[in-house]
Structures are given as structure tokens and as C-alpha cells.
């Protein structure tokens, strides 16, 4: 277990059904109720919305708190809920480091990215990168990077869903679980667009917060609501025949550089995740984008704070030695403290979590393909027929869903942690440097953006493949997460690329971008009722 990957989720795929709890009919019922609710939302959204602004950006009429919850629902994946709980249950303090990084990352989003993005763009991250550069090369590469991040992240979620079901229900239901997840996300996005996706994410965020809060409360109840008793137990967890103080760092991460590289990927990667960034187009203006990040920071912060209770709770109340698959730590804890019905509820919440995240990923990928590649690269900024952009997005969403189902089935044995690590590394090394330089460096231009995206994308993939998460023993590249090397590489490439081919037109447009980013002049308006 010495792979320093970004997401611990399902790093060890449990052999199915050994000592695993089985899911009762209640869990299936609760999950069906959630699905029914999301389908009703989709039906409502499909009736309500028409036009590109509605499909891609929910008419830009989502309010601050709604978008805050939706960002939280888009972001808190199965890796957060199941994976981090498991990491804390098995490695104590080191697992909690993920919780911290995933939250602090929102300051990068808040202080640097969210408002200019809302002021400058329309539907995608590439809108900002192409603002003062030549559209075709920049959009093509930005879209490629978006699709890479999205697909890596998506496969990780879907493989996770399949393995989760297999661990909970006796027998092999992997393919069925993956197919159900894939079909549902297609339905949400194809019929309900961004509006349905948003509300599925809001409902999921509320459910996840309720489930986490109830679980935390039960843990504290177990310790007689005494923080002292709770931490005394955390200080003496029995693992592998010895008593360990789980507050002590070092049960997972051994090297400082590894730790710093991971933290860098977390704190820079989040602000480059396309499915998070496009959420800021769903609000009326930059001010609301800002307030939605603040709402998200509060919700996400409270959630990660609670990982202390249910992560350490699983370590102390059940004990890591009694958990076959670390990713089942939270559900097992729920079973032990709250009985079968609560266990069923937590399993349904885990599934809802996965569904909301994959829906966000699907709309991000299909928006980027339709808006960046189809309309702007192939058709040079014009729809040949009205409504074409949405039609292409729907077809893409369908294709993305089918491809994801197939890939998840083929890559069943894939190392999920590696895929999520890859997604964050590409986001941090390719997307974020390009966004930052576009906003803050006047001379930055098309060539620079192309180099930044290409080098960031390639270097993060190559370094992960050469690193310990793929090569296991004796890796060529020692760090589990490449961010510490690939982010500087992307930045250096951006500077060299920019200086090699100066572009007066790009510099000339800086004034317009500058003024618009900071004043909101000419920003996309919310659609009337």
C-alpha cells in the first residue's frame, strides 16, 4: 500500500462477498426511490427548458446556494465518501489529509478562477482559453484535455459503482450495475440537460450531508457524546496485532516530496476540473458565482470535517482488521450503529453520489464536444442549422455513456486510484496553467496555450505511467503523483511556446479580456423567465 495516488477509492478491489454484508430489499427500495425522484426531476427539466442556454447552462438562473449545493454534489464523489472514510479507517491521520486538500482547493477556485471564468465564457473552459487566442487549435486541445479528464474520472466512478454493488450483493452484478449507472446518466443529460443535472446534484448533496451527519451523530452517541472518549479511542486502535495511535502521521505517506506533490495536485487540480468549472456558467453573474463557491466551501467543508467522525469511527468501533474492503468502512459502520435500514440508506446514498457525479461528467464532456469541437472547430463558430449544437451534445452524451459503460466493463480490473490521480494531474498540469496565464499574462498567446495544454497533458500521463501506481516496484519516476514535476513542465512549456511565436492580435485583445473579466461588461446574461 505504498502508492501515493490521489484517490484511495477501491485501490484494493475486495474479493466479492467475503464476509461482506448483504443488501436488503430496503436498500433496493431506497435506491429505486432516489432514481424515481431523479427521473421526475429530469421530466420536469425537459418540459421546462428549451434552447442552448437552457440545455448547457440551465438558463443561467441557478441561485447562489443552489449552485453551491450542486458544486458540492458534483464534487463529492464516491472517492470522498467511501474512499476517504476507508483511508482514515485504515491509515488514520494520513487519510484525513485528503479531506483537508479537497477543501482548501476551493480557495483557488474562489480567489482566482470562478469570477473571471463566469464573466468571459459561455459554456466551457475552452471559452476562456480561446478568448484572445486563435479558436481552432486552442479549443481542439482544450476539448481533448476536457475529454481526457472526464473519461478518466468517469471510468473511476463507474468501476467503483460496479465493485461496490458486487461487494454488497452476493453474485456478480458488475456489468448490470455499470450499465444501470451509464443508462441513468444518459437519461438525465440527454433529456434534462444542465437543469436536470443540477437538481440531481442538489438532491444528492442534501442526501449525502444528511447521511454523513446521522452517521457522525451515531458515532458520537457511541462514545456518550464525549469528544475526550472519542479521541482516546482514536489514540488506541488495534491493527495487525498492535495498538496504534491513529492521530500520528505516517501510516501511509513516507516521503515529504510525495506528500507535497499530492497536495499540489489537489489544490491546483480542482480549479482545472472542467465539470466543476462549467457549473459557474449556470448562475446569473460573477457575483453569484462567487457566492456559490462560498456556499460550496461551507457544505464541502462540513462534509470533510465529518470524515473525522465516520472515518475514525470506523477505525475505533469496527477496527481496520474487521473490514475486508476499506471502501465499505462507512456502510459497515452504518450497519453496526444504525441497523439494516440505516445501512440500506447509506448504501443508497453512496449510489446517488456516484450517479450525480457521472451526470456532471457526462454533461461536461458533451458540452465541450458540441460547443468546442463541433460548432467552433469544425463549423468555425456557427451552427449550420438551428438547434444543432444541442442535438450534437445529446448524441455525444449518449455516445459518452455507451463508451463509458463499455470501458468500465473492459477495465474492470483497472486501478481506479490511478485513473482519478490521472484526472487531477491533467487538470492541474494542463488546464490550470493555461487558464492562469490567459488571465494574468498579457503576452500569453495561442502557441503558448497549445504548448501548455499539450505538455501538461502528455507529461502527466507519461509520469503517472512511469510512476509507482502503474509500475509498482522500482518505478522509473518515484512520485505517485506527478504534479510537482508536471505543473512546472506545463508552465515552462507555456512560456517557451509563447515567446517562440509572438502574436500581436492576442496581446491586443488583452485589454478587452481584462476589462470584461473584472467588470462583467458583455458577460452572458441570465435568460428571462
Amino acid at each position, binding site marked *: 500500500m505504498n502508492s501515493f495516488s490521489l484517490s484511495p477509492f477501491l485501490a484494493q478491489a475486495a474479493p466479492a462477498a467475503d464476509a461482506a454484508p448483504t443488501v436488503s430489499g430496503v436498500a433496493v427500495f431506497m435506491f429505486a426511490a432516489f432514481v424515481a425522484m431523479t427521473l421526475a426531476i429530469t421530466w420536469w427539466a425537459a418540459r421546462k427548458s428549451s434552447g442552448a442556454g437552457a440545455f448547457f447552462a440551465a438558463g443561467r438562473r441557478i441561485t447562489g446556494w443552489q449552485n453551491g449545493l450542486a458544486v458540492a454534489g458534483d464534487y463529492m464523489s464516491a472517492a470522498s465518501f467511501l474512499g476517504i472514510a476507508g483511508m482514515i479507517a485504515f491509515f488514520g*491521520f494520513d487519510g*484525513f*489529509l485528503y479531506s*483537508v*486538500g479537497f*477543501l*482548501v482547493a*476551493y*480557495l*483557488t477556485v*474562489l*480567489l*482566482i478562477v470562478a*469570477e473571471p471564468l463566469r464573466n468571459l465564457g459561455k459554456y466551457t473552459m475552452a471559452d476562456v482559453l480561446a478568448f484572445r487566442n486563435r479558436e481552432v487549435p486552442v479549443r481542439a486541445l482544450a476539448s481533448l484535455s476536457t475529454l481526457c479528464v472526464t473519461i478518466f474520472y468517469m471510468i473511476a466512478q463507474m468501476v467503483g459503482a460496479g465493485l461496490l454493488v458486487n461487494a454488497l450483493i452476493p453474485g456478480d452484478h458488475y456489468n448490470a450495475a455499470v450499465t444501470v449507472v451509464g443508462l441513468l446518466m444518459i437519461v438525465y443529460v440527454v433529456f434534462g440537460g444542465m437543469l436536470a443535472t443540477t437538481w440531481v446534484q442538489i438532491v444528492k448533496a442534501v442526501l449525502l450531508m444528511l447521511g454523513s451527519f446521522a452517521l457522525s451523530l451515531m458515532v458520537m452517541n457511541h462514545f456518550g457524546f464525549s469528544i*475526550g472518549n472519542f*479521541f*482516546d479511542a*482514536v*489514540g*488506541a486502535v488495534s491493527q495487525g496485532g498492535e495498538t496504534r*495511535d491513529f*492521530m*500520528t*502521521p*505516517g501510516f501511509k*505517506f513516507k*516521503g*515529504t*516530496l510525495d*506528500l*507535497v506533490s*499530492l*497536495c499540489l495536485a489537489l*489544490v491546483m487540480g480542482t480549479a482545472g476540473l472542467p465539470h466543476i468549472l462549467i457549473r459557474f456558467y449556470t448562475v446569473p453573474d460573477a*457575483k453569484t458565482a*462567487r*457566492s456559490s*463557491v*462560498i456556499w460550496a*466551501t*461551507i457544505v464541502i*467543508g462540513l462534509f*470533510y*470535517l465529518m470524515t*473525522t467522525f465516520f472515518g475514525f469511527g470506523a477505525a475505533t468501533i469496527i477496527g481496520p482488521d474487521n473490514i475486508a474492503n476499506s471502501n465499505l468502512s462507512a456502510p459497515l459502520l452504518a450497519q453496526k450503529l444504525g441497523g439494516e435500514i440505516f445501512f440500506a440508506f447509506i448504501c443508497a446514498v453512496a449510489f446517488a453520489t456516484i450517479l450525480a457525479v457521472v451526470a456532471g461528467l457526462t454533461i461536461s464532456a458533451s458540452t465541450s464536444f458540441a460547443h468546442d469541437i463541433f460548432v467552433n472547430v469544425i463549423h468555425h463558430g456557427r451552427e449550420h442549422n438551428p438547434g444543432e449544437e444541442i442535438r450534437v451534445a445529446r448524441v455525444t452524451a449518449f455516445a459518452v455513456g455507451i463508451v463509458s459503460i463499455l470501458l468500465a466493463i473492459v477495465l474492470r480490473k483497472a486501478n481506479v486510484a490511478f485513473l482519478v490521480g490521472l484526472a487531477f494531474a491533467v487538470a492541474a498540469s494542463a488546464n490550470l496553467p493555461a487558464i492562469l496565464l490567459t488571465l494574468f499574462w498579457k503576452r500569453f498567446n495561442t502557441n503558448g496555450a497549445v504548448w501548455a495544454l499539450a505538455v501538461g497533458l502528455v507529461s502527466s500521463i507519461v509520469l503517472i505511467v512511469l510512476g509507482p501506481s502503474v509500475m509498482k516496484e522500482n518505478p522509473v519516476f518515484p512520485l505517485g503523483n506527478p504534479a510537482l514535476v508536471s505543473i512546472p513542465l506545463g508552465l515552462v512549456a507555456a512560456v517557451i511556446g509563447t515567446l517562440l511565436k509572438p502574436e500581436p492580435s492576442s496581446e*491586443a*485583445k488583452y*485589454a*478587452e479580456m*481584462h*476589462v470584461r473579466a*473584472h*467588470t*462583467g*461588461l458583455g458577460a452572458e446574461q441570465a435568460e428571462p423567465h
Partner: protein
Amino acid sequence: MSDKKSTNEEAWRAIEDRPEFRELLAAKRRFILPMCLFFLAYYFALPLLVGLAPDLMGKKVRGPVNVAYLFALSQFFMTWIVAIVYSRAAAKFDRRAHEIVHDLES
């Protein structure tokens, strides 16, 4: 067409050169840059100290609760405080930006 384009560029540059806009940018930079440096320094202090100063981080404060855990926990409050402080400052920036837009429209 190209004439139109360059007058357009000049118009934007004229706004960019207005003292109110320059002041707004300077005020934003004075606030956001130190804020970013602060939160990055505070955040990266955690992995660096955990890696380089394990004795300090392992020091028990109360019961088994050690410096490392309290420092990690403090990151949550740091994030919330920075977010709230920024949102208050940003409300002022909004007003100034609004005035600039208002001036341009009249």
C-alpha cells in the same frame, strides 16, 4: 472590418486606462495576491511539517490529540475565514466595478 476591429480594441484599451479601472485592479491585486500567498503557505506548511518535522507534529496537546491533527483541523477554519474575508472585500470591488460600468453607460 479591420478598422472596426482596431477601434473596438482602442475602446477597450481606453476603459482599461481609466484611473478608476486601474485603481480597482490595484485594489484587487493588493488583496488577492497576499491572500493567495497566505493560504498556499498555510496549506503547504502542513505536508512540509508532517514530512520534515515529525517530532513537532507528533507532540501531544491533549490526550492523543497532537499538533498535526489540530493543524489539519485548523485548515478548515482557515479556508472558511479566507472565503468570508474575501467575500466581504469582493462586495467592495463589486461596487467599484458597478460604478465604472455605470459611468460608461451614462
